């Protein structure tokens, strides 16, 4: 295939991934890597490099709006980034020694877990609390968020388990070249009982910082092919922008069902590919 045709095709695929990703609430990373690997036969390492770069692009764009509106909590974000960035460096170092097929299997499994996590019906079911852990108070993590009835205070709980889960999210991010937003949301929402709105906004801020901690290692190992990264990142970025505009009018529920079933099939394919079943 000619490079021009190839680049046009992958940027269109990245655009679609970006639109769907922002409508469903999954990052571009978990979608774009399997599309490149299974659809275009790209080596998983180049695919991960391109995906990680596009994760940084979309996270910067989306997080900016949340920060401006005062929904994200900068202190929670930066504090937890200590865990995710250290985890991401560990994950990226692990990625460079693992075999391509092992990466493929881990990727498929992480993708399935991501689907299960995003299937949860009521994200706020865990219930946010006003009071906080002593440690959270000491770290000044509790904050206020804007609501329809003015600013509202919220508490933060179980800082240490949340921090530990964030390290795991970081390892997965560095290992697989994904933003691991779904895992970050679970840590903040389920463990630390931070309100869902604040959780997703803060997670967006953290995704880019986490991804940046492994992208340097990917760069050094030659995972970033500029001629692949640029069309993918541009496609995902444009897609995420259009997706955000479409959000109020799109049939999100239906899209979720179709898309998540599709992602499950892709996840299984990644696992099968990893264990050597080709089709």
């Amino acid at each position, binding site marked *: 295939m*000619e490079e021009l045709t190839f680049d046009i095709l992958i940027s269109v695929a990245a655009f679609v991934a970006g639109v769907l990703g922002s409508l469903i609430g999954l990052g571009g990373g978990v979608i774009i890597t399997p599309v490149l690997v299974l659809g275009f036969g790209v080596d998983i390492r180049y695919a991960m490099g391109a995906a990680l770069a596009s994760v940084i692009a979309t996270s910067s764009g989306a997080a900016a709006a949340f920060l401006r509106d005062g929904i994200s909590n900068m202190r929670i974000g930066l504090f937890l980034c200590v865990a995710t960035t*250290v985890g991401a460096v560990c994950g990226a170092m692990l990625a460079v020694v693992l075999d391509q097929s092992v990466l493929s299997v881990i990727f498929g499994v992480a993708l399935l877990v991501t689907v299960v996590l995003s299937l949860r019906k009521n994200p706020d079911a865990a219930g946010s609390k006003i009071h906080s852990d002593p440690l959270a108070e000491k770290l000044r993590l509790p904050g206020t968020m804007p609501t329809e009835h003015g600013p509202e205070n919220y508490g933060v709980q179980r800082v240490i388990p949340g921090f530990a889960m964030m390290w795991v999210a970081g390892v997965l991010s560095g290992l697989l070249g994904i933003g691991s937003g779904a895992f970050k949301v679970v840590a903040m929402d389920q463990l630390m009982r931070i309100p869902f709105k604040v959780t997703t906004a803060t997670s967006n801020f953290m995704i880019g*910082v986490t991804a940046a901690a492994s992208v340097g290692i990917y760069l050094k190992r030659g995972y970033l092919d500029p001629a692949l990264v*640029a069309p993918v990142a541009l496609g995902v970025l444009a897609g995420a922008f259009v997706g955000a505009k479409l959000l109020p009018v799109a049939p999100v529920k239906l899209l979720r069902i179709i898309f998540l079933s599709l992602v499950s099939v892709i996840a299984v394919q990644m696992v099968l590919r990893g264990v050597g079943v080709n089709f």
Partner: protein
Amino acid sequence: MIKDTQIQKGLARMMLGGTLIAATLMLAGLIWYLSANPGIKSGDHIFSGEPKYFENPVQMFQRALDMSEVGHRRSFLMIGILLLLINPALRVAFAALGFVAQKDRLYAGISLFVFAVLVFSFFW
């Protein structure tokens, strides 16, 4: 005294602006790169790594400016990408400065630690 909301607004502006500039450069670089390589087949099916000079931003700038260099256009493209990749590090550094101005030692320290990890990962 600087307020949290001021730091957040500054951060938001930097993130959005940086992403737009990086995207523009990438798009320009990509068009330029493709115009020189219309018929080349893509070699991404097999992992071969990337040239060593991509590791060093200074060398890459030199190569991007050197018209006689093979891979000159690829280097140029890579600079747009690098701009995208350093955005999060700049974000953290900016937050650290904000916290220093607030005399918030704890969070200035936390931000600087995260910044150090990011720098370490790029230059390790």
